[in-house]
């Protein structure tokens, strides 16, 4: 069936089975990691394409003071518009199981439209009937709502209304409710009227006809529609144009996938080092055979094909192991990612191209890695290949040994040190593989530290333990007095908060953000201004904006004047500073805020407790709720700052956790590489070991020589990983900053992490070298000396 040369190849695989298996497993491990990421990414992309883009997402939303049927007909008739609909979106609150939740309600005239932001019914009644509500499925679990249950909705100062939950809907254009802690609901305009909310629809949403149009083109179309609306005497207050065809969380997800993909590629690169080492060692051991084959008429090309075929076979084995495992891991991982985009992967298969790409990479990676050593071996002249230099031929270590002439070091130890440098290319690739794993391990630890510090920094302004949001605004003095008497409370501060929007020069309102009003000299809030200054007691209409708000509205630099729309009133403000918060908000002096509202009212209380423990603070919260309820100022919701901090930290550290896992995978691959290298070294030096044994070397001495050689490579890998971790940490911090938020960069690993990694590398080296060392002691001296 096979020609003799291919039979030789197959038998060579069998002859080198333990080392080949090690390389197959290492390549498979790398492929599982990177393949699972590719499969997950491809599956999420497919779901995004088919689910999100297939739903005809809205290209632009225009908020108008009034809409009529004639206007909608006019807009639908525009050649640039493929579809249009009207709706109203408004915020309300809901009380579920004693907790107040934010609710975003969407009222539509036509729930059945298929050509614009298609809504799908999951269960129950669809579309919602008057007096009922359909909940978006991603909001169900966290809110504790269910089909057949009910929800108490509360709009503005209207009395709460109980609505039965008659249906569950799915809107792929919404970010998941569980992620933003928002309950998304769909109601009819008549239901809005029941809640006491304005029932007229005030938003026109369009889908542009040109599906390839970029954001600027869509914006131009939206402004043309604005002109059309305003010609009819109506007023457009806001235009929102999202990035075309891109889900709200897609950029974050892509960045995350890209970072992960880069680590997948790094893992594959490390795997290729192992292949280079195995093939190079195998070729070195078969130099004479290559010479014989050439003398029998084999061309360099024929020999190269044989050894590259061997590498291809390794790749095929690795792919056969890795592909199904990567698929098995990818599916739940993709489901998790899709869940973050409010999609479901159910019913979708990983695209065939992703599997074909992995198979191609799995097969080609070993071939490409083997290409250089194979070409080098094939170019060796036949006469040189047939020459046998004996054990003196490999003088590579003599050069090094001469330089490691440290006084007091025993000769066997000196031999081990020299042996480590004998095959310098192999040693370099092995230690680079270990160092790459170490650098990711240290980089992930640095990032963990950076994230913790960033979260510390984030919460460093907050010198309070509990936040209580009251159901309404009450006189500050009254709420403070009621809370101050509660046992366990050390200090109380009432603050006010409302929503505001920037009114641009063209009369358009920007996106709404939170305005926090507090006394400038409050001991419960420490400023961390990055630019300009913090609020002072003398300030009137002064504003400190958050970094996130500055990112949305780049003109809000210190010194700038801005017109804010607050509760329907436009007022002039000047920016005095920038605070590094990750939410879009702005701080104003409480006195100015009170003057605007003609009363000293607060809607939230900041509380410092006497006890620091979580359970003690929970008791204080319970007592505060009870006391304030009793005083007629019920609490809508509350949270303990340390718990919020932990939740934020846990959320951010999930990404770091993944990098840590990649570091471990690479360390395992590096360990496999070291095991393979040491096994090859023992095989190549069988004759030399025989000579050593013949002149009296004991088992222990032989074993120690192999272990020390492995330890030398391991410790060098550790030493190289330290400087390598510097760019790694910088890259990780930069990548994290792009995806999540900016974190400080550590250029040097912590002493604890470096020590842990050193202990780890020693353990990895000892484990990796144990089997080769044992094999070295098991070779009988006679067989070793007769070894050809």
């Amino acid at each position, binding site marked *: 069936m096979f020609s*003799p040369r291919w*039979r030789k190849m197959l038998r060579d695989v069998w002859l080198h089975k333990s080392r080949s298996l090690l390389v197959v497993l290492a390549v498979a491990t790398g492929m599982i990691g990177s393949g699972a990421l590719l499969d997950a990414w491809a599956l999420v992309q497919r779901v995004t394409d088919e689910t999100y883009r297939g739903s005809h997402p809205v290209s632009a939303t225009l908020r108008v003071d009034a809409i009529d049927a004639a206007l909608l007909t006019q807009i639908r008739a525009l050649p640039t518009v493929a579809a249009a609909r009207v709706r109203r979106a408004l915020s309300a609150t809901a009380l579920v199981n004693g907790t107040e939740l934010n609710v975003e309600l969407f009222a539509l005239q036509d729930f059945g439209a298929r050509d614009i932001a298609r809504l799908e019914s999951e269960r129950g009644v669809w579309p919602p009937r008057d007096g009922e509500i359909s909940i978006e499925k991603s909001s169900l679990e966290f809110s504790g709502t269910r089909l057949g249950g009910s929800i108490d909705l509360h709009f503005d100062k209207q009395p709460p209304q109980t609505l039965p939950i008659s249906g569950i809907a799915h809107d792929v254009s919404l970010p998941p409710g569980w992620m933003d802690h928002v309950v998304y609901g769909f109601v009819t305009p008549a239901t809005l009227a029941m809640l006491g909310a304005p029932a007229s629809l005030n938003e026109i949403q369009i889908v542009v006809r040109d599906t390839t149009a970029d954001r600027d083109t869509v914006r131009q179309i939206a402004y043309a529609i604005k002109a059309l609306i305003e010609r009819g005497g109506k007023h457009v207050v806001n235009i929102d144009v999202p990035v075309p065809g891109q889900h709200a969380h897609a950029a974050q997800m892509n960045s995350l996938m890209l970072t992960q993909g880069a680590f997948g590629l790094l893992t594959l690169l490390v795997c290729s080092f192992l292949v280079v080492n195995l093939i190079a060692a195998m070729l070195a051991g078969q130099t004479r055979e290559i010479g014989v084959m050439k*003398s*029998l008429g084999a061309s*360099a090309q*024929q020999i190269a094909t044989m050894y590259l075929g061997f590498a291809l076979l390794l790749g095929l084995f690795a792919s056969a192991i890795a592909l199904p495992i990567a698929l098995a891991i990818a599916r739940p991982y993709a489901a998790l990612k899709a869940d973050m985009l409010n999609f479901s992967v159910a019913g979708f298969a990983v695209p065939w191209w992703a599997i074909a790409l992995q198979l191609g990479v799995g097969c080609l990676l070993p071939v490409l890695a083997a290409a250089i050593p194979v070409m080098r071996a094939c170019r060796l002249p036949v006469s040189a290949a047939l020459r046998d230099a004996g054990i003196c031929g490999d003088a590579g270590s003599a050069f090094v040994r001469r330089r490691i002439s440290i006084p007091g070091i025993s000769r066997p130890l000196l031999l081990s040190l020299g042996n480590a440098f004998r095959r310098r290319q192999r040693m370099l690739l092995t230690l680079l593989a270990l160092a790459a794993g170490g650098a990711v391990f240290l980089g992930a630890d640095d990032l963990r530290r950076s994230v913790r510090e960033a979260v510390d920094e984030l919460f460093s302004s907050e010198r309070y333990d509990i936040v209580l949001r009251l159901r309404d605004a009450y006189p500050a003095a009254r709420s403070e007095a009621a809370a101050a008497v509660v046992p366990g409370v050390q200090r109380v501060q009432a603050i006010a908060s409302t929503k505001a929007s920037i009114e641009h020069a063209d009369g358009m309102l920007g996106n709404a953000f939170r305005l926090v009003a507090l006394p400038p000299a409050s001991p419960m809030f420490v400023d961390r201004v990055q630019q300009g200054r913090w609020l002072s007691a003398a300030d009137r209409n002064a504003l400190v904006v958050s970094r996130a708000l500055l990112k949305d509205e780049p003109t809000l630099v210190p010194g700038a004047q801005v017109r804010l729309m607050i509760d329907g009133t436009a007022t002039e403000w000047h920016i005095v500073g920038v605070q590094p918060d990750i939410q879009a908000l702005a701080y104003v002096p409480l006195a100015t805020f009170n003057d605007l509202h003609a009363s000293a009212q607060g809607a939230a209380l900041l509380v410092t407790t006497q006890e620091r423990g979580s359970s003690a603070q929970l008791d204080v919260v319970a007592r505060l709720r009870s006391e304030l309820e009793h005083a007629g100022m019920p609490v809508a919701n509350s949270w303990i700052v340390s718990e919020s901090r932990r939740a934020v930290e846990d959320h951010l550290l999930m990404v770091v956790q993944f990098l840590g896992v990649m570091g471990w995978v690479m360390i395992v691959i590096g360990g496999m590489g070291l095991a393979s290298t040491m096994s090859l070294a023992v095989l190549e030096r069988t004759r030399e070991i025989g000579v050593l044994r013949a002149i009296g070397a004991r088992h222990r001495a032989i074993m120690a020589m192999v272990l020390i050689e492995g330890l030398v490579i391991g410790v060098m890998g550790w030493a190289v990983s330290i400087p390598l971790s510097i760019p790694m940490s910088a890259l990780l911090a930069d990548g994290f900053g792009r995806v999540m938020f900016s974190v400080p960069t550590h250029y040097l690993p912590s002493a604890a992490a470096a020590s842990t990694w050193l202990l780890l590398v020693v353990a990895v080296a000892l484990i990796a070298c144990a089997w080769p060392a044992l094999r070295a002691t098991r070779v009988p001296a006679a067989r070793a000396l007769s070894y050809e």
Partner: protein
Amino acid sequence: MTLMTHVNPAAALITLRGISKTYPSPAGAFSALSAIDLTIQRGEFVGVVGQSGSGKSTLLNLLAGIDRPSSGEILIDGQALHALSEKQLSAWRGRAVGIVFQFFQLLPTLTAAENVMLPMDFARCWPSRERRARALVLLERLGVAAQADKLPGALSGGQQQRVAVARALANEPAIVLADEPTGNLDSRTARALLDILGELVRAGQTVVMVTHEHAAMHHATRIVELADGRIVDSEAAVHV
């Protein structure tokens, strides 16, 4: 007893003109062969003799196209070896030359038959389905057909060398080059192997054998003696 006679250079199979081979070494250039002129006729059994380091193996390597001369010309069956590229040399070697090594050099992971089939596989001179049958014929001819499916490790030295000869004949080469083929064999096995080489010559094959064994020299039709990289004698041997 051997009598030397001069050989007619006409109808030469192998012609070496002004061949020199120099190797670089830490102690300076080392001249392995210098100013070699040699002609070998088709059907000759040439024994190349000389002391260790005299240039015997270098000469054989040059004839096999394994090594290249530093200067001079090598013509084999009208083919100028010194002008061929490495790729062309490989192809030529596969078709025109069979080599027998001192240490047999059978590939350890291939059976005897597969070792014989290997040159056919490389040179593609025989259809793939005929290769095994031809290998078995050659092994039969050399008396080791019973060992066809054994790995070299399971064969005696003599058997391995017979398989190596069968391998050298795989592609019906015009020339068989043997480098100390009996150097690793006992005298009885060595004699049998030399008889086989003699039979090849009688069947029309040309054999060039490097040896330093007297018994081996007796089988040659001509002895070329080398000393310090030069031919000191090249006479036809007449066996009495």
